[in-house]
């Protein structure tokens, strides 16, 4: 994992300021979804080796939830966007292409 993460609100900050939640890929099922859907959401993981999007919170800074796209093998960070600006795309898609589609611009207030 890189030692620095570029928060879209606070700029380049040390990784210790951030707290990870995990894979940003899974989507919460509807409350009345069947049991299998909930089991898969809560317990099963793709556990990607390679480019992956994750939820991190800038807990020692602006406290915004972010989506960090990074490689779980090389530890390279490709892009960081505010979670509110993130649109889910299939994980298999090359991460670098997503970077261009999601400009990590400053997002005030929200």
């Amino acid at each position, binding site marked *: 994992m890189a030692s620095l993460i570029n928060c879209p609100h606070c700029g380049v900050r040390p990784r210790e300021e951030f707290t990870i939640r995990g894979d940003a890929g899974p989507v919460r099922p509807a409350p009345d979804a069947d049991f299998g859907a909930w089991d898969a959401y809560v*317990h099963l993981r793709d556990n990607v080796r390679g480019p992956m999007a994750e939820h991190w919170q800038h807990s020692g800074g602006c406290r915004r939830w972010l989506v960090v796209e990074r490689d779980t093998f090389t530890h390279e960070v490709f892009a960081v966007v505010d979670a509110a600006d993130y649109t889910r795309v299939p994980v298999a898609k090359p991460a670098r292409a997503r970077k261009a589609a999601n400009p990590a611009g400053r997002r005030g207030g929200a």
Partner: protein
Amino acid sequence: MRYSAFSIFRAALAGNRGWKPAWRKPEPKPHYDVIIVGGGGHGLATAHYLAKNHGITNVAVLEKGYLGSGNVGRNTTIVRANYLLEGNEPFFAHSLKLWEGLEQELNFNAMMSQRGVINLYHSDGQRDAYARRGNAMRLAGEDAELLNRDQVRELAPFLDFDNARFPIHGGLMQRRGGTARHDGVAWGYARSADSFGVDLIENCEVTGIRREGGRVTGVETTRGFIGCNRLGLAAAGHSSRVAEMAGMRLPIESQVLQAFVSEGLKPFIDQVITFGAALFYLSQSDKGGLVFGGSLDMYNSYAQRGNLATVESVMEAACALAPAVARVKALRAWGGVMDMSMDGSPIIDKTPVQDLYLNCGWCYGGFKATPASGWCFAHLLATGEIHPLAGAFRLDRFARGYQIDETGHGAQANLH
């Protein structure tokens, strides 16, 4: 060749030119009764017990690197059986019993050292929790002893007992716990399995799992297709990747855990000591180096290296526990890829694919489990039945709501 004091003496007289390699380097056969994916501690132990307990010797262990190049060579060598929950403790108690007879069984010096494991407590609440844990251990037939502050001080005088934030009030001692030489364990199991006729095939990475009509027929590897009747996966941190080849998603995240060794010192820490205020554990190897580690780096990783932020927090814990180590130089640091399960407990089970068996989810506690894991997995591969000691380690326990959650953290892999 049987190893003994006499064999050393005889080889020395012959100029030490008579030693043979401890195992063969066979070419893979086209078909085996059982193939085990992963030539680490658990895979090699499984092969040993398949041959010894069940008489199944037409077995291959496939390893993508060299034998023992994964987590069995990258841990902090601690052996203990101090679990709370009844799904876990009998299994680890059996493992500790196997450790005690391991060197005689394998005819290999694994440097098993029952020096004792002390879990320190720093508050009244923590003492109560450890008393409860100790009682659970004794109910399962294990030894456990609650030490007060003076008893701990007698054993480990160099700790910071009067730390302002985390004073040491005592510790839970398991005297039969200790350490073993991690590589020696892998080599001992490998040599024994090989002597029974098991083929240990190194530099052979599995790239696909071939299935016909819902059952496994063999594996595609970098050294060609190899057929089998039954396939066992013991791929530790890469379990999700191998299971994916059979169309499975596992309740596992792969995370990196770091460990460290210091320069050699005179005898200083006699036991394995764990800090109750932070996840930190410390022992001293026979060479004199302090062996220590802390918590996960907390993020998914397949790289066998970690982050400096974690290095710093581990060093801080070391200095808080034993201030005398502050000026000791760290010699080496390394990381291993852990298969962190969603409840912190392992999986030894059948899978929805017929003749495919799974051994994974050992989190950062796999080393001490090596003998019992091999014992139970061999039983499963040989008979198709779950071993009673591993009866709680089922793959579907998450869906059924029967998690074995020692820490009570829920389905968050990095908190176990």
